[in-house]
Every structure is written in structure tokens, then in C-alpha cells.
């Protein structure tokens, strides 16, 4: 079970987020988050509404000033800089939004919408830009006659293609995609997900793919960050997040995912009770302890740090233990009602 690493670990990450904090008044939306994205990698960010995942995406994009912490692109700090200095860097990072109905100007033609970033950055002659728009439209699978039409003439899936073409116009290295397929019907969702995977292969893009849907994130992401109440509680990878969740919240999240596959019926049955507490007053200690079926006294008083395990994962839970042979054990494995009763914990191969 090897982790696919598109680049050697030693190369500077494309994006690095260090201890990012973003508060809106009393709301501690993002409360100290660190992670990185390597070139060509897709990092999935999953969590429920109010966990801070969209705020984190917007903060990384510089759409909202940070309360503290920093964002680095190719090793250089890009947060907290004056706009004039950030602007050239913005070409490297683009965003795709959830709602293709709200994020496209209804009074602009599709060709103008896709061309706009090129104009803003003063790239190319009008003629060269138009040629590029045609090429971008072809790349995302829009018909050539789309350029002269308005967004309302298109279906949701086609509009999301317009949003993606616009994001690609400046040949970015990183695309932050915030729930890009959540507003789409199932049959159209697959089209857009496949398109994003294909574009990544063709253009070497990196994605931060933000979604509440663990199945979609699992499909598209190489590594997966699980967020709860402003904090990352687990960093896992595609190979392990579904079958070997470490944090009880991750386990509960995937147990809650209704599976269309009869095989899913054999999945662990762990119910997370109650609702997420308000981010204005997160619980003391572990933020998840109020809903955690495995909590012990310590969890209510002492906040668990996100600790890196030697198998490449990270987890913020007091109850995850690493045995002498280096294998991490989820708390659920030691309880009377095990999460995965049917299958023994798989040893993580050292590779």
C-alpha cells in the first residue's frame, strides 16, 4: 500500500499553510491549520457545514485577510502582502466555486467570462486572447459556439465547465475548488469529476478539493484532510481513509455516508450523536469530545495536538495509540463495540 507521491518529499511544496487562523468576530472559523500541497497533488478537504473548510479555501486564496498564520506559494509568503504584490502571484492560484449559477456574470457572454482573467492581467493581444478562449473551451468540452452565448443558456454542468475554463485561463499551478460538484445532478457530477481528473493529468495541476461528500473526496484526492470545528483532526490518504479511519470523527463521517453498494452494509456502524457545537464557543479540550463515543476524562480538558505518525498520516486524538511495531490503532479497535468487527486491523506496510 504505497502512497503515490507525484514529487519527491524533499521538493518544496507548491502550497504551504502554516498555523492559519481566521476569525470572524466571535466565530473561530479556522483555528490553527497547517498543511501543504505538492505539485501535481490533489488534497481533499472534507468536513460538515460550519467546520471552516470554505473559509480556509477563501483565506488561502487571499479573498479574506488572515487573523494570523501564513500561506506560502513555492516557498514565498503570499499572505498579508499588499494587493499589488499579490496580483502577479494570483495567476498561479485560481478558484472554482460551488454554484455555477451565482459565480458567472449573467450579463456577460461565455467567451467574455473566460477571457476576463487574461484581460485583467493584460495578457496577449485581443486576437491571441480569443484564440486562447477557443482552446480553453475545447479543453473543458464546451462547444465552439458557446462563446457567444450567455450563462443562462447552459445547464449546471456546462456552466461549471465555464467556471473551470475561466480558472484555467491563466495556466494556474493550483486550483482551489470549493464544492465544485455539489450543486450538480449525479449524472452530471461524474462528467465534471472526470474532467477535473483529466485536466490534472494533462496540465499537471494541483487541487485543493473542498467537499462535504467523503465519497467524492475519496475518489479524487491523493491525500485527505478531515476538518472539524476549525481544526484538522486527521490527515490520511486515499488508500487508508475509508478502510482504516483513525479519528472517531472520520469513522463516524464515513459510517454516516449512505452507501449505494450492498457491500457498504458491512461497513462499521458508528453513530455520531448530536450536532456540531457553535464555532463561537468550541468545547474545551478536544473539540469533538462532546460527540465522541470513546471520550475519556482527558479529552474534556486537554486539547490533542495533530501529531504526525510514521506511516505518513496525522491525527489529533488522545486515544489513537501507536504500538511498539509502529502501527497506529484507532480507539475504536479496543472497545466493546468495535467499528470494524469483521476485519482485523491491517498492519500498515512500511513502504
Amino acid at each position, binding site marked *: 500500500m504505497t502512497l503515490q507521491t507525484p514529487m519527491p518529499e524533499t521538493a518544496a511544496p507548491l502550497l504551504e499553510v502554516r498555523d492559519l487562523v481566521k476569525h470572524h468576530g466571535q466565530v473561530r472559523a479556522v483555528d490553527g491549520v497547517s498543511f501543504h500541497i505538492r505539485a501535481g497533488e490533489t488534497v481533499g478537504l472534507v468536513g460538515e457545514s460550519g467546520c471552516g473548510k470554505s473559509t480556509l479555501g477563501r483565506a488561502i486564496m487571499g479573498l479574506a485577510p488572515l487573523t494570523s498564520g501564513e500561506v506560502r506559494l513555492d516557498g514565498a509568503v503570499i499572505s498579508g502582502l499588499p494587493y499589488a504584490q499579490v496580483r502577479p502571484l494570483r495567476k498561479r492560484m485560481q478558484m472554482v466555486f460551488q454554484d455555477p449559477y451565482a459565480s458567472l456574470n449573467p450579463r456577460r457572454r461565455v467567451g467574455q467570462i473566460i477571457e476576463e482573467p487574461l484581460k485583467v492581467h493584460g495578457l496577449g493581444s485581443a486576437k491571441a486572447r480569443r484564440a486562447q478562449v477557443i482552446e480553453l473551451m475545447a479543453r473543458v468540452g464546451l462547444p465552439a459556439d458557446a462563446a457567444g452565448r450567455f450563462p443562462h443558456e447552459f445547464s449546471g454542468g456546462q456552466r461549471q465547465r465555464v467556471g473551470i475554463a475561466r480558472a484555467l485561463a491563466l495556466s494556474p499551478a493550483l486550483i482551489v475548488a470549493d464544492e465544485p460538484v455539489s450543486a450538480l*445532478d449525479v449524472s452530471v457530477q461524474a462528467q465534471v469529476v472526470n474532467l477535473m481528473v483529466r485536466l490534472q493529468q494533462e496540465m499537471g495541476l494541483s487541487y485543493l478539493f473542498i467537499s462535504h461528500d467523503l465519497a467524492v473526496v475519496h475518489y479524487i484526492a491523493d491525500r485527505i484532510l478531515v476538518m472539524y470545528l476549525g481544526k484538522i483532526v486527521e490527515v490520511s490518504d486515499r488508500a487508508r481513509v475509508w478502510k482504516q479511519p483513525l479519528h472517531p470523527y472520520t469513522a463516524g463521517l464515513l459510517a454516516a455516508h449512505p452507501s*449505494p453498494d450492498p457491500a457498504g452494509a458491512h461497513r462499521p456502524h458508528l453513530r455520531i450523536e448530536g450536532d456540531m457545537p457553535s464555532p463561537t464557543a468550541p468545547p474545551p479540550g478536544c473539540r469533538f469530545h462532546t460527540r465522541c463515543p470513546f471520550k475519556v476524562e482527558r479529552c474534556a480538558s486537554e486539547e490533542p495536538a495533530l501529531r504526525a505518525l510514521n506511516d505518513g498520516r496525522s491525527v489529533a486524538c488522545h486515544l489513537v495509540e501507536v504500538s511498539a511495531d509502529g502501527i497506529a490503532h484507532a480507539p475504536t479497535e479496543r472497545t466493546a463495540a468495535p467499528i470494524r468487527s469483521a476485519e482485523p486491523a491491517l498492519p500498515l506496510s512500511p513502504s
Partner: protein
Amino acid sequence: MTTGALPHTGAPPVLAVRGLTTRLKTRAGEVTVVDGLDFTVHAGETLAIVGESGSGKSMTALSLMRLLPEAVAFNAGGSALLNGRDLLAVSEREMRGLRGADISMIFQEPMTSLNPVMRIGRQLEEVFEEHKPELSRAQRRARAADLLKLVRIPDPERVLDELPHRLSGGMRQRVMIAMALACDPKLLIADEPTTALDATVQAQILDLLRALQAELGLAIVLITHNLGVVAENAHRVLVMYAGRKVEEAPVAELFAAPRHPYTRGLLRALPNPDAADAGPRVPLMEIPGIVPALSALPKGCAFGPRCPVALPACAETRPELRPVGRGSAACLLVTPAEALA
């Protein structure tokens, strides 16, 4: 998947719908949004109606509840017998008596269905004022508290005095369910009841609905776009496309052996982490194109233009539903013999 096919003891269905047809008046003329729909639901059974936006699944629910405004929609045929009474034929006055008493409905967004400036207790008591005028005020309050207990709301006395915005989305949906169950309905129509909720809360609400069904013997029509929700909660499934039923089957059979190419496409379009291993990504199966506009349906099969296995005949002939396996499917390519093979 907790449920198999429900063995019917021969009891008549709670709801029997025959040829339900609803037409909508639009600027572009009239369109048929529900086209000749047949189905039944028995006590203790959940029938899922699944489809994408524009398939007519919500229109079906609103037609049965007679909640579509007359100015824009009308019933153009069919019957819907609820314990023998035709919901489509009774007077509006009779319908008012049935709604909330014999047949109830819960919606996707509980906040828009609750009065934001009225306390929860008062809203629950209103149901009794309408349907059980003989109850005293104290009795109504006690019943309201009982209902909140029924839907597992902790501290019901406190919640009775809260305004809706003080409750979480999950709690609000529990209140809606309590309200819907106030007068012991035989049939509950749940239209995307968990779509607006987070995954962990969605699981709680679906657990609750299953438990209540077992306790009360409710017949449930569950309308959803989520095939995972269908698989884990329904006994039978009806798949709609462009206003028509294209397939119906017991849940296990539908997922094990989907007959209609549209159903197959929907199932394969979903990423399936349970089946996935750590190997390279296999592209998701796409259904090309988009759902057709109801005002411009093709002459033959409505799914034909998007169907990967369509024959020339599919463009000419609209397929009728034919029995196949333990269900039925509307596809020229599906024959009972093929299904048995």
C-alpha cells in the same frame, strides 16, 4: 442496507396510485410533469421515488398532497386511493381534513416550513387545534411534549418554548417529523428530508424515521436524489425520468440487477469507496448530455438521446413499462426473458 423486500400479508395498500398525471401551465404552454404514474405503498413499507432534478418526483408528492396552486398546475388524470378514498377527487374541505391527519408530508428545509416567530410548542398545538378540537389546552401541551419525546428530542419541555432558529437543522427536522406524526397518519411523504442536513445528522434522522416506521407501522414515500439513502432505507424503489416511471423493483434487486440503462448509469456514475482499492482511479461512468426539457421531449424514449445502448427503434417508440424480475422497466431492450437469463 437494513431492509429487504417487505412480505405483504395480502393487506390492501395504504396508498394506491393509478395513472397519476399532472400538467403544469408554463409560458411556453402546458407540459406534463407527472405522466401516468402507478404505484402502491403498504403499511410499514418505504417506497423510494428517486430521480434527478426535473424528473417529477417532487411534483408527484405535491400532486398527492394537492399542494400545487391551481393557477399553475392541474390534475390531468388518474386516481390516488388512500385507504379507499381518492385524494384527487375529494373536495378541498375533505382534503384539509386528510392532510396532516391521514397523510402528512415533511420537506427538505425545515426552517422554511416552520413559522420563525412562533414557539415550537405553539406550532405543534396548532395541529391539534385543526384536527383534535376536543383537546383542552393542557392536553394539547402534554401531547406536544409527547411528540417531541417520540422523535427523541432531549429536554422536550424546554424545546416547546424555543423559537425555531434556536434549534439546529437536525432538531428542526425532528420537530417537523413530530408535527407530521401528530395525528397518527397512515402515510408519510418525505421529500428530500435530509438533503439540507450534514452527513452525521442525516444518518440520525434516517435512523429515526426507520425506528418510527417500525413502531407505528407507517407507510412512507421517500423522495430523494441520493441512491445511498435509497439503498439503506427503502423496501422498494421507483426510478423516475422526465416525469415517467422508468423502473420499479425491490431495493435489493434494483441495486443488484438494475434493468433500465438510466438506472444503471446512475449507479455507475457514483464513486464507490466501498468497492475501491488503492489502485489507479477508474474514470466514473458518465451519462452524456442533460435531462431533456419537458416541453421538448423526444418522440420515442425520453432517455434515448443519452442512452449508450439505444437502438433506432428507441427514437420512434415510447417504451411501455413491462414486468421484469420482481419489478418492471420501461425499455425496449428489456424483456422478461432477458431478465430471467
